[in-house]
């Protein structure tokens, strides 16, 4: 059973790291601010979610797992807000910092 959990952890974290990598490449390669935001927020949210999922079996308790989940939710909240604000600046024609 613990072997199956380990396989799950390795697979989920690896997939999450792949999404992080894809998001980072998108951030560097995409042509304009909105596309870069798209790459960053989508990929990072899924990537962090998968890493969180993969770490759940190793969290060592319901409370620790719940904390991981809340961390992911907070990052989702923060990144969606920040990306909206950057997108608003970009749409007004200013250069997003």
């Amino acid at each position, binding site marked *: 059973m613990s072997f199956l959990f380990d396989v799950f952890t390795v697979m989920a974290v690896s997939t999450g790291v792949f999404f992080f990598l894809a998001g980072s490449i998108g951030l560097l390669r995409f042509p304009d601010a909105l596309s870069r935001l798209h790459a960053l927020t989508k990929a990072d949210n899924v990537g962090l979610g998968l890493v969180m999922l993969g770490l759940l079996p190793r969290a060592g308790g319901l409370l620790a797992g719940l904390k991981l989940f809340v961390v992911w939710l*907070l990052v989702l*909240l*923060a990144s969606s*807000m920040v990306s*909206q*604000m950057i997108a*608003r600046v970009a749409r007004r024609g200013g250069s997003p*910092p």
Partner: protein
Amino acid sequence: MTVASGLALVLALLLVSIAAWTVVTRRTFAAVEGFVAYGLLLSIAWVALSAIDVALTEAAIGSGLTGVLLIGAAARLRTTEAALSTERAGALLRWLAAIASAVVAGAIAVGVLSLPDPTPTLAPAVAEHLPSIGLGNAVTAVLLAYRGIDTLLESIVVVFALIGVWSLAPDPLWGGYPGPRQYADPNGILAYLARVLPPIGVIVGLYIFWVGADLPGGKFQGATILAAMWLLVMMAGLTDAPPINRTWLRILLVAGPLLFIAIGFAGPYSVLGRKPPRDNDWTTFRLGSATASTRPRPGPGKTRGECPCPAPSPRRGRW
């Protein structure tokens, strides 16, 4: 080379290159971004060194709160930045700055490299006496018990710093709001975040303060999160910084150090029932680790609560 040392090497290279980029870059905003990224990487480095308390402080204060303040400063400096970038200091001044920086960096490097090995430490002594203080986190014990005066003075210095900031306000603003007001879209996304996040942030801040007694955390990190929540509400324009002349604000500011001092005075007359440690424990910490090794250790099975000191004695006054 093991995986861990390889990761440490990559982390160190990243840290040095981001630090160099922060210094070299000409744009103020880019330098602030570099500084924030540097702080986050530095907190990862502290985690790698098992200094979770320092990592939390670095992430919360060094990177987070200072980053917000620096972003605000960079935004204000934007109008003057174009004029500043055309200026260039004279050759003599630049050489002097380079020499001064090199001397400081060299002195720090010599200091770090000439540390004796093993480094003198009081950590075992602190760990040994943790039960007598009633705390599980050695860092909190050092901050609140062994170095309590330092922490008290720090909290007083923070009040003085705030008075200094207030004093910089223009004369017409004295007694009112200590700076320009924030304007933001009341229906914007920032206002939404400033309504949703603070309840969660307040709980997280209080939790980190509370958990600091036994686990990494404590008042610096918890208070920083609370301050960040208030900053967020102010940046979203939902509320203003309190006016300087509010009595409740001034009472609140003085209450922190006063509470600290009151707890210090209450210590000798504590009715909590915890027996004070023996006198020689405290002289041990004052004299350092040299005497710690010569001090006879309590025998096995003998806990601090059973120490052979008479409970109500005049010696209590020292603690």
